[in-house]
């Protein structure tokens, strides 16, 4: 961890412990160390580190994780607001690439 932290209490990540089988896949894919598994159940140990990338939801075989994933990019959100569409970054447009 670089020590960089973003806003607290904003992540939309939710874990349905009842569904979890403790496979640890969420630990493997999460780039910010949000999860731990104890006694064959996943736990969210650092919710505020979550950047809502969606990797855990997509890779949880038991469908125990939910997160509203998306691009955390101000210009994408502005463009989304102007065109009233879902935010999407200009990465695929011909002339620019934001990341």
């Amino acid at each position, binding site marked *: 961890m*670089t020590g960089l*932290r973003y*806003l607290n209490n904003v992540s939309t990540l939710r874990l349905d412990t009842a569904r979890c089988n403790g496979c640890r896949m969420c630990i493997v894919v999460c780039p*910010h160390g949000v999860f731990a598994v104890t006694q064959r159940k996943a736990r969210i140990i650092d919710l505020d580190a979550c950047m809502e990338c969606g990797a855990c939801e997509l*890779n949880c075989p038991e469908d125990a994780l939910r997160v509203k994933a998306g691009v955390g*990019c101000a210009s994408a*959100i502005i463009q989304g607001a102007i065109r009233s569409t879902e935010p999407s970054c200009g990465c695929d447009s011909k*002339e620019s690439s934001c990341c």
Partner: protein
Amino acid sequence: MSKKEQSRQWIIGEVTVNGTKIPIVDTKLISADRLGSYKARWGIGRMRYIVEPGLYAAGKPSAGSPVFVSANYKMSFDRLRSQLKGIDGWILVLDTKGINVWCAAGKGTFGTDELIRRIRAVNLTDVISHRKLILPQLGAPGVSAHKVREVSGFMVKYGPVRAEDIPAYLNAGRNATAKMRQVNFGFTDRAVLIPNELIQSAKYFLPAAACFFLLSGVGADIYSAERMIRYGLFSAAIFSAAYVIGITLPPLLLPWLPGKAFSVKGASVGLILAVAVGLYFIYNPESYRNVFGAAAWLFIIPAATSFTAMNFTGCSTYTSPSGVRREMRAAVPIQIVLATVGAGLWITGLFA
């Protein structure tokens, strides 16, 4: 230059497996590769900086060798192959439209469907005997490992975030340590993004700076070219300085600037510049037209730097969309008020 004509000096040979010819890649980067990355950072030929999707070989791979999956952005591909020195393996390049792994995964082009399609397109099962793929962990937001397995029979293993950890990952029996899985956003990670940010925002900032220059000639007596030179150059310079500082300093000083919100960090560098400009005015009264024109910068500069810093959230690897939304709900109205007050003062200054 078409995609295919791009020089492919990094192909150093060919292996034939079951009648399919597979190009062998160099695991050493040459100066042309480095120059290419440098140019791509500055946005030159960035969209043409691609590798043809398909299967490649590194070293002398056999049917049992590992398969590494990559994006067809040449910089992603170069990073991977340069870490395969002395490793015999296969590289499966997905068609991510020339976008890096992380961004392409976010969009889903580095994704489950494309991976399954590419496995079939290159007849991977004819080339290798096992059913395992090593993906960069940053591809996980686009790929569902269990779905890939269901549909294609291939088992996805997520490797380290950074290509330079691949040798260590393989040595550890294909196990990524917690450190290898952690995304960092260190000084160099941030600094390399600045050129592209400068180029991307130039199209908004340069015309605005030109407006400050040209409008400076306006006054109660309609227009004076002399006034345009006398005050306009300096106005354009201050605005340009706000732009350059707003783009470069927040990324460089990110951990040390106050606040968690990028808009606050950006406003703080703007305030420093605004104070510096104010002091300059105090000691050089001849450099500004009147108090309105001078005071305007106290508002315009922080508004501009706060905005550019907020836009840098798009490049960061730790900001969540929900967080950016919350930050923007608070920051954008303030930025608009600051900019409006600043512009109002500045225009008042033209006629005062």
